[in-house]
């Protein structure tokens, strides 16, 4: 499965948020979208998922435009993990995950034993089987995020789109979610996520897209894209980037900002 985003302009009726966005994504690959608040990350995701109509350009899967696809067909290809929010309805974790089967269930059918088995399997994959019967409204933010990932996996999608999956999680849960992302990519799923933390991009991404003022300022390998120069340009901060040995024997790059004099005014105006 191959996702192609070509010359995409996106935004809301009457208001363009971004344009000229072109990239692709293949199975097993993790692309991390990095960029400041208001840079258009969520709007771009909504456009890729067709919650918003593209203003220009196209989104295609295996060469076929998704513009005319029915919602259930889209949901069998794209799994979406929104930012975990406080639940409104006290569904159990199992029920939430079963909702991921919606697109696979006939018009008037209820989830079958096979659907329930898939939901259980996804809970086990994410090590949250013990939460199965707990109400979604009463579990922690990290547990909610893992539940939403399990729900998206229950869709058995080829492409997983995750909007800041590590935001508002404690350190342990951030690491757990990043670990899951790596494992899911190893299973051949194409993953696209946004984050605010360059270190997370270094940890899990094969490629990084830097979205600034609605345009792809840079796109490429993490060590090419996340540089002292690019972060100064986009965030207005001075950083040092240095390789560190990880506890698992691999090497990671980390990004350490300078405080005080190194900080420039945030978000210099858009290029005119």
């Amino acid at each position, binding site marked *: 499965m191959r996702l192609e985003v070509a010359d995409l302009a996106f935004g809301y*009726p009457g208001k363009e948020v971004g344009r000229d966005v072109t990239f692709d994504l293949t199975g097993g690959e993790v692309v991390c979208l990095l960029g400041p608040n208001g840079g258009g990350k969520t709007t771009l995701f*909504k456009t890729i*998922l067709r*919650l918003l109509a593209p203003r220009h350009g196209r989104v295609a899967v295996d060469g076929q435009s998704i513009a005319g696809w*029915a*919602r*259930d*067909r*889209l*949901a*069998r290809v*794209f799994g*979406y993990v*929104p930012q975990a*929010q406080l639940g*409104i309805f006290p569904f159990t974790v199992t029920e939430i995950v079963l*909702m*991921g089967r*919606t*697109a*696979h269930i006939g018009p008037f059918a209820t989830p079958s034993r096979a659907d329930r088995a898939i939901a259980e399997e996804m809970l086990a994959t994410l090590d949250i089987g013990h939460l199965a019967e707990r109400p979604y409204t009463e579990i922690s933010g990290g547990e909610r995020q893992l539940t939403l990932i399990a*729900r998206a996996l229950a*869709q058995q999608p080829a492409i997983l789109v995750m909007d800041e999956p590590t935001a508002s999680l404690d350190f342990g849960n951030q690491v757990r979610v990043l670990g899951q992302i790596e494992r899911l990519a190893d299973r051949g799923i194409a993953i696209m996520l946004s984050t605010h933390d360059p270190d997370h991009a270094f940890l899990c991404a094969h490629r990084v897209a830097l979205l600034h003022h609605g345009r792809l300022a840079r796109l490429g390998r993490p060590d090419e894209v996340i540089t002292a120069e690019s972060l100064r340009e986009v965030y207005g901060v001075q950083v040092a980037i240095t390789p560190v040995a990880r506890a698992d024997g691999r090497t990671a790059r980390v990004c350490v900002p300078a405080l005080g004099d190194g900080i420039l005014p945030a978000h210099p105006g858009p290029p005119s």
Partner: protein
Amino acid sequence: MSPDSISALRLSLQVAVAATALNALIGIPIAYFLARRRFWGKSLVDLLVTLPLILPPTVVGYYLIVLLGRRGLLGRPLYELTGWTVAFTWYAAVIAATVMALPLLVRTVRAAIESVDRDLERAAYTLGRSELRTALEVTLPLARNGILAGMVLAFARALGEFGATLMLAGNIPGKTTTVPLSIYTAVQTGESSEAAALVAALTALSCVVLIAANRLGARAA
């Protein structure tokens, strides 16, 4: 109460129930489209649906005659094709009541739909539900209190409709004379006890509807 009054009461209930059902059938989809879609001519639809609230009922009745009368824009082809005309039948009373009640239902239901969190609809979309099923399974159930309130308002308005009904359906005892028309006739002809009985019946009926709606609303909330 005279047989004429009893028939007027029965007719009024029949017309109000039919008009409320038609309102739900037509008005809820209109309210949904006004609340959730952008389309060409949207402000025109909004204007047309709201006008009966502002215009005098006789003006609405006049337009309905122009549209549906025997020589009307739609009425003439219908008459030539079938030899039947809707004017001066109880269907005309239903149409008049429906048009007059529509703004109340559409405005109430539209506001209720607009207050439904769109992220809940988007969640259904990303899980693979079509817009129609999302509307039926997510949006409208969450807007049910507003829909109920709109239907109660529409029913009450339909029950009390006078001007447009008189214009399109006339005042034919036993056929198109609803309670408001019957009260008018009774007062005009000096049958004050008959008028008082109908006024009491309509007041009681309206109170029952309101109390029932409040109870339902309290349970749904």
